[in-house]
């Protein structure tokens, strides 16, 4: 009984509250109609996005004609022009990085916005900002790909003949210039082809200008003169006897001496001998071409009969006129291979 009474009171209270609330909600609307008038229509198109339908005639944005286009189409056209890849030519390779890959940002929306209110024939500039760090990083990857060190020719002996490896010039991308050129092209919305400059460094030792090479065949007592890999002449020589063999290996000429003195070397066969001045009896003849092997050299000999035999104390003996000729055709530093063949 008591419970139903309470429920009745509660319901009554709710009803009262509801009535009050509805009154409170409805009255102000009648009091202030001006506030709501602007929000009543729902079907009309909004003036927020479609005010100018098309851009004025002959308007360009960054050189792209957009006259008569809707802002959307104008944006697409400007964007397409911006997005064309920048064609770069590096060392005869063509590359086409996208402008966004290079950190370029086009302010296309702003330009379209400005073009909306631009009068006929206006040339609206397209602002393009470029992140120099991105361009530098890209140029660094280019340099990594295209830069190469110069490769000098190297000399080997292959099958008793000198063989010279190929030389290759070095190539260096001019990074600062490349970065600047790319940034300028991007900012101006130019898409190239842009040739990036490289500098070439010549190798210091080349196959073509390698110079003389000597190969001495100890077994057959012959001296071969090559210019690089090209054979020039062969001479008969005398080499060391079996007790004092001519050393085998790769040497070079360290001394060139015209009309040399002969000094007794520090060896048993020369014990007690005196130095011999230049002259007809000098055992070195008129020319001395000392090798990097100690005490060994190529020289003329007053004893032509020994040529063709292994009779010397280690040196390579030649006929005096031939030694004089050879002297003029080798340099200090010329490589001398001595092989056992």
């Amino acid at each position: 009984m008591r419970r139903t009474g309470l429920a009745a009171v509660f319901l009554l209270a709710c009803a009262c509250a509801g009535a009050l609330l509805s009154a409170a909600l409805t009255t102000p609307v009648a009091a202030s109609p001006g506030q709501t008038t602007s929000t009543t229509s729902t079907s009309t198109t909004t003036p927020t996005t479609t005010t100018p339908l098309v851009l004025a005639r002959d308007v360009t944005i960054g050189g792209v004609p957009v006259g008569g286009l809707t802002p959307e189409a104008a944006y697409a056209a400007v964007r397409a022009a911006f997005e064309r890849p920048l064609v770069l030519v590096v060392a005869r390779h063509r590359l086409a990085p996208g402008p966004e890959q290079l950190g370029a940002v086009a302010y296309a929306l702003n330009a379209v916005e400005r073009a909306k209110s631009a009068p006929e024939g206006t040339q609206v500039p397209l602002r393009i900002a470029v992140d120099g760090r991105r361009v530098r990083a890209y140029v660094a990857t280019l340099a990594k790909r295209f830069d190469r060190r110069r490769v000098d020719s190297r000399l080997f002996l292959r099958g008793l003949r000198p063989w010279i490896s190929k030389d290759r010039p070095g190539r260096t991308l001019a990074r600062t210039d490349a970065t600047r050129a790319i940034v300028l092209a991007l900012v101006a919305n130019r898409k190239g082809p842009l040739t990036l400059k490289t500098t070439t460094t010549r190798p210091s030792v080349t196959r073509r200008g390698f110079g003389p090479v000597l190969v001495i065949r100890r077994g057959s007592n012959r001296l071969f003169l090559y210019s690089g890999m090209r054979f020039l002449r062969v001479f008969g020589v005398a080499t060391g006897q079996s007790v004092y063999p001519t050393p085998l290996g790769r040497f070079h000429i360290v001394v060139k001496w015209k009309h040399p003195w002969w000094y007794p070397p520090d060896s048993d066969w020369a014990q007690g001998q005196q130095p011999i001045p230049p002259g007809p009896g000098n055992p070195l003849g008129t020319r001395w071409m000392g090798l990097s092997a100690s005490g060994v050299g190529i020289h003329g000999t007053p004893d032509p009969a020994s040529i063709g035999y292994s009779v010397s104390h280690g040196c390579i003996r030649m006929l005096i006129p031939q030694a004089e000729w050879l002297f003029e055709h080798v340099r200090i530093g010329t490589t001398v291979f001595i092989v056992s063949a």
Partner: protein
Amino acid sequence: MIALRREAGRPLRIGHRGAAALAPENTIASLERAVEHGVDVIEFDVLDTSDGELVLAHGNDLHDVSHGLARGRVRPLTLERLRRAAPSLPTLDEALAFLAERAPGTGVHVDLKTRGCERAVVGALRRHDLLTRALVSSFHRSSLAALRVLEPGLPVGLTYPQDRYGVARRRAMRPLIAVGAAAVRRALPYRLDRWLAWTGAAAASLHWAVVSRAAIDLCHARGAAAIAWTVDDPVVAGRLIQAGIDGIVTNDPRIFEGPFPT
């Protein structure tokens, strides 16, 4: 570009996740309802799936996103599996295609829920020619910075506050939230200034409970628009309009039809 500032008269009418009160939120049907009711801007949320596809979803909870059909998380799924769980879920491309075709002149307000999908979103807007009428908003300053680099001039909105732990959904927290919102509302004008300067945002997208006249005035002084979400109560809407709000995000666009009781 979309005009966000209220020139005179009424504020922008923004449909929340389409028109969430009239159809399941973040679906094409919901977008259709919003267009039918003539909203100025349609708002929806974008989430990325594990295979990089962007879908219309506002959170990681599959139960919500599939409208109760499945349980679990959204982001670990691929689009294909997500489609099986939630057949009515549109991809961003589908939604934008719909808007480009069926809603010419209607603005697009994309709310990014995760970081890292800015490029894909801008690309999609570009593909559908919608950049000139788009607003992209996010909680994350880094997202806004990324957007500014991807497409300078694209209006970006700073969303605040972010309910990171879903406290607002818990009934028990309600009194606490009311107090919290009041505190945030008081503090907001002092913080908003800095945030707007940092982000260069064209709009501040604020929860209605933290909006104050001071906050709105500050946005205007910074040249930004103030947008309030999610207002389904005409009384609140009326109050916000009087305070000078530039846009109101609502689940129910019908509130703009009737009078605003005060």
